């Protein structure tokens, strides 16, 4: 089986400073991979590179056997969905956010899926029309996750998405993505420091001094 993501000799430098050096690894479909390492090691940069939000200085990233710059950036990002550390909701209401993915696809808003999503992250249906300024940090993060999953991507990239949340919110998000990984074979690559969360993934890649090292595989 060909890997869903493959990184070959990926390097990134900014203003002459090397952030990442010759990173190579590949990820198979359905894997749940944790990227870990000391802060400043370049993990976040690596995840942004894979999300095609920035471009590497050298090296290549393959998605489904094809180099990522050969896809239209918008198509690629719909398939490989990047989720920010502290996600920001935009415009006025929860609806504006959950309807955005259908708007950019020129499709009708799938209200059922939105409500189901809210239900999964344990928010009541009435939240759909709630102004975003009335939401707590944890609620925003959960809604952002529903937003990213309104159209199921093939790969989900997450950068310490639970780091600023309390135990309860952490639990809700973790359960949700674990289920997606197991039931829908969603490939997940995330950054976390949480030991509990690291245990949940089936592979651990350590990024240290800009280099990658596989340390756990099951």
């Amino acid at each position, binding site marked *: 089986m060909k890997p869903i993501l493959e990184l070959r000799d990926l390097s990134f430098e900014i203003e002459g400073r090397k952030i990442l050096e010759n990173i190579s690894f590949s990820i198979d479909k359905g894997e749940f991979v944790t990227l870990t390492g000391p802060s400043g090691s370049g993990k976040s940069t690596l995840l942004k590179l894979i999300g095609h939000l920035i471009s590497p200085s050298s090296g290549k990233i393959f998605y489904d056997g094809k180099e990522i710059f050969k896809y239209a950036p918008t198509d690629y990002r719909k398939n490989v969905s990047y989720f920010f550390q502290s996600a*920001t909701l935009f415009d006025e209401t929860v609806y504006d956010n959950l309807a955005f993915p259908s708007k950019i696809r020129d499709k009708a808003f799938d209200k059922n899926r939105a409500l189901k999503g809210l239900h999964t992250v344990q928010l009541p249906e009435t939240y759909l029309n709630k102004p975003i300024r009335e939401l707590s940090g944890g609620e925003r993060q959960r809604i952002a996750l529903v937003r*990213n999953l309104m159209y199921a991507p093939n790969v989900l990239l997450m950068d310490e998405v639970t780091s600023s949340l309390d135990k309860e919110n952490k639990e809700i998000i973790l359960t949700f993505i674990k289920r997606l990984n197991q039931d829908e074979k969603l490939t997940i690559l995330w950054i976390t420091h949480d030991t509990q969360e690291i245990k949940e993934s089936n592979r651990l890649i350590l990024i240290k001094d800009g280099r990658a090292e596989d340390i756990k595989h099951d």
Partner: protein
Amino acid sequence: MTNHLEISNLSLILSTLLLVIAILVDYKEKLGLGKDIFIAGIRVVIQLFIIGYVLSFVFQINNNLVTLIMVLFIIFNASYNAHKTSEGIPNSFKISLTSIGVGTILALGILVLSGAIDWVPSQIVPITGMIASNSMTTIGITYQSLTTQFKDNRQQILEKLALGADEKQSSLTIVRQSIKTGMQPSISRSKTVGLVSLPGMMSGLMFAGIDPTEAIRYQIVVMFMLISVTAISSFIASYMTYRSFYNEEIQLMI
């Protein structure tokens, strides 16, 4: 009531007293603007004397080609100034020239075709100046609004890009807001027109002895013209500019 329209050289020199007052304020408050005020004074005198003689010449020969050159000269100058205030937006001269040019030509065209003004230099040149200068300030505000909004809403745009939106879809809210910001002054100005401010056009006509009931007709046309020009130019400038905040790979550049 005598209405003699002439300022003698003596009156002109005495009016520099007004500048002296400004310089006194500057001196007392230690604003450090003395040199700037002095230069501004000299600049105003030289610039206006030159333009006075140039316009007097243009009006006298009343030649279509010369009038057209004058119009283009004003558009060019306005564009150049807008470009200089654009804070490094790429292609800002081209964008400014297009938005000011299209706005001015459209507005001028409608005014001439509707018969509101005649194609004579004494009408065309001042009206062009009014249109172009308003268009210039409008796109200055528009550029500023775009730049600050792209900075302030960086995270929001990144979220939209990450969800797979293209440049236009990610910028739409910002572009709309910038057009709105650019148009706002010309719309709010209409609220106080005649009540607080007597705008230049009607003031000038009234100065020249035209009956106010006639003068306001011109002012009405001018107000409409300014609202439309600010709409056109902020619209064009916003839509031509937003893409420059992204690279080829649709990644945000700031």
